């Protein structure tokens, strides 16, 4: 077989995955961001602060733990871009938007939970990230990342 044809056959599936990842990934990201912004506008009135205690003026009457978690994976295109980045260093822009979406989605879920339970605010907001090891390739690589947002939902008295 012609070596050029052989290389084309090897490179073909890779290019397909790259294109597939780019098109689907872009569409998914665009629709996710529009959904996030819509829900952020809707939950805008619920204050979320990272102080450990609520301000005394809030006169907290009750509180409970609320949390929101998202697990994100990465598309082939972003992974390839990140791989190239890894060779030369620098900001992995393709991961930034992914993690930004995950963080905001986690906070949104937490806020939505607080609102649904009738709370007025969330104090002591914390964000945690953990890596999920991939089950293939001898556990190397990353299957995804979990972002967990949690805090104390409080009811304000008076």
């Amino acid at each position: 077989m012609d070596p050029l044809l052989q290389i084309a056959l090897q490179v073909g599936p890779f290019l397909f995955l790259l294109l597939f990842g780019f098109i689907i990934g872009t569409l998914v990201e665009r629709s996710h961001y529009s959904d996030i912004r819509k829900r952020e506008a809707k939950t805008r009135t619920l204050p979320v602060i990272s102080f450990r205690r609520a301000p005394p003026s809030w006169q907290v009457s009750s509180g409970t733990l609320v949390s929101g978690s998202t697990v994100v994976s990465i598309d082939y295109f972003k992974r390839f871009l990140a791989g190239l980045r890894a060779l030369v260093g620098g900001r992995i822009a393709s991961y930034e938007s992914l993690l930004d979406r995950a963080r905001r989605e986690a906070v949104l879920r937490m806020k939505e939970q607080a609102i649904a339970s009738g709370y007025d605010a969330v104090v002591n907001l914390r964000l945690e990230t953990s890596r999920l090891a991939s089950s293939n390739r001898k556990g190397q690589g990353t299957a995804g990342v979990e972002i967990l947002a949690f805090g104390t939902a409080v009811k304000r008295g008076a």
Partner: protein
Amino acid sequence: MDWEPRDFPENNVTDVHPLKELVTLVAGIAAATIILTLAIAFTLDIGMRALPAAWEARLFDGLWSDLDEVDDERHAAAVRLVDELALDWPENPYTFQVFILDSPDPNAFALPGGAIGVTRGLLDSVESENELAFVLAHEIGHFSGRHHLRGISRTLAVTVVLGAVTGGASGTMLTQWVSEVTQLGFAREHEEEADRFGLDLVEKRFGHVNGATGFFQKLPDANAGTVGRLGAWFATHPVSPKRISDLRRLARDRGWRASGELTPLDPSFYAE
């Protein structure tokens, strides 16, 4: 404390179009790869040319022991012919070894460390000592120009750099193809140089160059696609009308006789 609602910060994502990022990265890395490969090949090339033949022999010692070598009664005659031809190369730093390889395709190779590989097919196809001498002298010419090492330095550079960039195994196919492409022009130049060197040795030994050019004339038709019994040799030693006419012109310019009596091969070639 006043409560003022704020939107989630939108400053956490670098504002760059992913396709622009892709093009920038691919182009940048490709350019760096090419420059690096050339730099490594160039450095290795200098090192290879300066490598003393004794070191070379030690470096590659035993590397050819797993070749498909056969016991052939014509081996002694081939060794003798190589040694006698090398006598006319006073600066020869090599102690040549000859391997007979078990292949029906006529072919010969110059291998690092001073080893000349000759296939059974080649020994079967030559009809005079002059013909065999030209092939062997041509291979000696590759040693004189250090071509066998310089080819290696290119392949090595391509293998190392592409292997690193593509992450090893996935790059082997590509590596092979790229190193073949980079050898093309390089190889032709080396063949011409080895031809000139070889013809010179043949003339010194026999006093004429008959048989050496006759070797080329055996080809039924270089353009016909099939190159007859000597096909394989010309596959790794690409034949062109230019190559033949270059040799004829060289012989004419140096005043070498184009005709002369052909020397019969060693009796071991006729024993059957």
